[in-house]
């Protein structure tokens, strides 16, 4: 029965995706993306991926929509209609789709426990995590422990992308028209403002809960960072850009971005200094399992700090810019 729900969600997903591509108004397309993301998150949840669903919800429904909207406010919302029928792209896509669907008949059916994916390292992770790491969330253990090298690389990509946004949008900040009143956000709407202000502490608290409970339930640095960023952005939306910037100036944000990645790498090097390999946490404590837990906590904290800093900085970079003439 739950599988049937999955089918319905996937079908709705297809309808939404077609609508996103077809609609001529970009504003509408972005709103449909928000629905697309919610559907995707629900699908992930039905496919037993609680951590991924949490990330998709926090990123897709929250930050992704907000960033697209912030950019659209600078770009404009209309797409030019093209007269020519795109026969060639359609032909390419039809052919590729046919090939790929033909290939799927060789894939094991959904949920087959004998599928090749499940034979190699995954059983080892599931078996060894309680013993070696002493945590119940295998995803967190693999993310911050067994495959921490990979995660460090991803954090550096996020950091680079964040600095890229800041550098590209850095120049010509105050060049707009002076007669425009400063953006005040939703300050004149009393009820949303009061409720929103009431919500911010809960959002941040929930983010911190995910950050520190990530070893035992769904959660971890990536999800927590995204949710805390949404809380901070909500403050900027309610009180206006200037107030949002005042609590976390760009200098502090760049410090957070770099500091989180630095913390991650420093934990790795500390492991080397204590006689292990890079990103081996077992030397942090007399008991190797406790050492692993401490290391995972520190690394996840680094991830959370970098993700929060990057997302908030990207939001400010778009929201603070003057709309070009």
């Amino acid at each position: 029965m739950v599988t049937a729900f999955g089918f319905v969600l996937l079908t709705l997903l297809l309808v939404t995706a077609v609508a996103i591509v077809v609609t001529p108004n970009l504003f509408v397309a972005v709103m449909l993306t928000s629905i697309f993301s919610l559907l995707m998150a629900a699908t992930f949840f039905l496919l037993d991926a609680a951590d991924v669903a949490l990330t998709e919800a926090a990123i897709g429904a929250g930050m992704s929509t907000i960033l697209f909207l912030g950019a659209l406010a600078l770009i404009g919302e209309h797409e030019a209609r093209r007269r020519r029928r795109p026969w060639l792209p359609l032909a390419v896509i039809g052919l590729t789709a046919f090939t790929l669907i033909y290939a799927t008949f060789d894939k094991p059916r959904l949920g087959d426990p004998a599928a090749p994916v499940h034979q190699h390292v995954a059983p080892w992770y599931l078996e060894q995590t309680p013993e070696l790491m002493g945590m119940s969330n295998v995803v967190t253990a693999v993310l911050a422990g067994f495959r921490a090298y990979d995660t460090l690389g991803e954090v550096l990509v996020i950091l680079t992308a964040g600095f890229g946004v800041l550098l590209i949008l850095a120049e010509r900040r105050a060049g707009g028209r002076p007669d425009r009143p400063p953006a005040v956000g939703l300050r004149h709407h009393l009820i949303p403002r009061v409720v929103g202000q009431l919500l911010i502490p809960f959002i941040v608290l929930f983010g911190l809960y995910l950050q520190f409970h990530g070893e035992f339930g769904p959660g971890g640095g990536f999800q927590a960072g995204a949710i805390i960023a949404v809380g901070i952005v909500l403050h900027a939306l309610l009180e206006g850009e200037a107030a949002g910037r005042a609590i976390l100036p760009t200098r502090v944000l760049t410090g957070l971005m770099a500091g989180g990645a630095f913390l991650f790498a420093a934990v790795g090097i500390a492991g080397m200094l204590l006689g292990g390999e890079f990103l081996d946490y077992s030397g942090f404590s007399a008991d190797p399992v406790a050492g692993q837990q401490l290391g995972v906590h520190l690394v996840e904290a680094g991830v959370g700090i970098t993700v929060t800093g990057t997302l908030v900085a990207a939001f400010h970079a778009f929201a603070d810019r003057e709309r070009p003439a």
Partner: protein
Amino acid sequence: MIIDALSFAMLALGGFFVFMGGLGALRLPDLYTRMHAASLTDSLGTLLTLGGIMLQSGWSLATVKLLTILFFLLMTGPTATYALANAALFSRDDGPPATAP
């Protein structure tokens, strides 16, 4: 036994109201009436559905979480509807609403 019957009744009613609200949000003629239908799913539908689950789970951490979810939904739902109605009413380019709010 009584609790089971009660929670099933609540879930059934909740599903019914959610569906009616969805139907209304699709079929009613203009924004304000649609908003009214959609808020039915937000208040009564949410209350009954989550209440039905709560009765099944008894006194546990799950119930506390469900209460928290219910609290946030009941707080944000009307606020979002209010902000939306406000923005729609004062948007200059749509003109005055067809029916009086």
